[in-house]
């Protein structure tokens, strides 16, 4: 049996020599290496993702329904509902796929967003996927929306919405104290109640909270923003995506947000 220094040296030599067989022989099961440049690479992890996708555990597939889609600047964001059946009951999972488009219109990279609590009943943190903060030239309404959100100015925030506008956080409740995520809030009255509660809780518990913008694109009507919620009081980030749809008057018809922060 080789000593630990011999095994460790053999791993590095295997990487230096690009010797996959040698590296494989050093592991009792699937090779699992976390490298600063390459990230964590686990043998057959991609196949495991596809063949054993977690939302499908103990569930059967029924259909996928597209709700909205925005395509611009080499990206596509498609908001879908995955219809499943689990334990004899229907389960709807809102999913967004944000993909970078590569050669011949094929995908290069995809980021999926959905609330894991819908699947396993537990609250999760989603770590950063995109490192670099960006600056994006938002539509004036969305600029006002972002500014109002940052300073928690409820009136300015509500003023960016059309009369029939809505916010959908794709969570399980309209009351954040239920701990089930932000639900759907419609019209000025609903928005005032839901977003007012969010701002009130946030002011007390996370006064330094801000959104880090990491990717954005717009097809003119819908702007897609990938973000990280930064809360200095928490040693975690919450990665998410928002799709902001404007009406013909340039006001917000729908703010559809997919994250796991609440």
């Amino acid at each position: 049996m080789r000593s630990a220094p011999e095994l460790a040296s053999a791993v590095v030599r295997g990487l230096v020599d690009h010797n996959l067989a040698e590296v494989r022989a050093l592991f009792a099961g699937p090779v699992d290496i976390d490298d600063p440049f390459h990230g964590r690479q686990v043998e057959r992890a991609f196949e495991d993702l596809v063949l054993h996708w977690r939302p499908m555990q103990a569930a059967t597939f029924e259909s996928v329904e597209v709700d909205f889609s925005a395509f611009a600047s080499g990206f596509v964001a498609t908001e879908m509902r995955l219809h499943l059946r689990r334990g004899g009951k229907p389960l709807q999972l809102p999913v967004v796929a944000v993909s970078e488009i590569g050669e011949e219109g094929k995908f290069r990279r995809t980021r999926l967003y959905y609330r894991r609590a819908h699947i396993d009943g537990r609250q999760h943190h989603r770590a950063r996927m995109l490192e670099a903060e960006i600056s994006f030239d938002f539509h004036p309404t969305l600029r006002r929306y972002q500014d109002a959100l940052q300073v928690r100015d409820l009136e300015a925030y509500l003023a960016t919405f059309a009369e029939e506008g809505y916010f959908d956080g794709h969570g399980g409740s309209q009351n954040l104290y239920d701990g089930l995520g932000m639900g759907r809030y419609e019209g000025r009255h609903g928005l005032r109640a839901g977003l007012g509660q969010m701002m009130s809780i946030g002011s007390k518990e996370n006064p330094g909270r801000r959104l880090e913008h990491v990717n954005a694109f717009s097809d003119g009507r819908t702007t897609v923003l990938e973000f990280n919620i930064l809360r200095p009081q928490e040693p975690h980030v919450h990665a998410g995506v928002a799709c902001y749809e404007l009406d013909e008057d340039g006001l917000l018809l729908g703010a559809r947000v997919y994250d796991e922060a609440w």
Partner: protein
Amino acid sequence: MTSVDNKPGSEGERAEQQSVLLIEGLACGDLGTIRGLYDGPADIDDPFAGHTIDGGLEALVRAWRPVEDARYESLRVDGSAVNDSMCGVELTLFATRSNGSELQLAIALVGEFRGGGLFERVRLYYRRYSIDGQQHWRDRVLDEEVEATFDPVVARYQEALRERDLGGVMASFGADPVFDGHGDAQDLSTELGMGRYEGREAIEALFTQMLGLASGSDGRYWYLEHVNVFSEGKTTVLEFNVVYPQENRFQAGVAFYELGDDGLIREARVYDEAV
């Protein structure tokens, strides 16, 4: 901004259909369909599975970044700490870059063992700046904070770090100590990473500067989150995350604390990418 373009046959419609095929492919476990949607290796970041790239391990092994532009010369084992289930091994990789310059890369490898004396999981730590000349963030490698039981001296050192207690830090070191951060700086304000500091005077100067920064006087408050600890008696290995709460940024790293015969820290060797 471009205009809405999801008309039948448009690029937008095709991209939307591909998105549906992706979700259907995941729901039905259809590898071929998913692979066919990508112009290269399929690259998916999933909430449960994390970032997975088709053939990612093969790419890591066949094109390991540290030797992409260098010729391997030799590998030296500098130290190790091993117990029944974990090992921490410190190595130096010697290589020659294509421009003829020498590369010395300090690497720490933490391995988790399974039965049969083989690895179950390996975490590599090295400073990417040594390879590409750019500062990087290393996000969390391990998520769960642990309640570590340290050797009393290492515990006192950790407590003093947390309390920004310079006297407590210095009381943990022996008479002729070494602190090696494997970076290039003696002065942290140059942001080249902690270098090698020999003797109590140099180490006290380092910690005076480091704990001053840590106190947040320049707005850069940080603390350590402990995520794995093991010891072979003389050397304690600590995997940690440096947490910068104001920026919600992290630097994963590992430290080896070696005690001298007097029971105090003789050498602290740290591998991270913090500056």
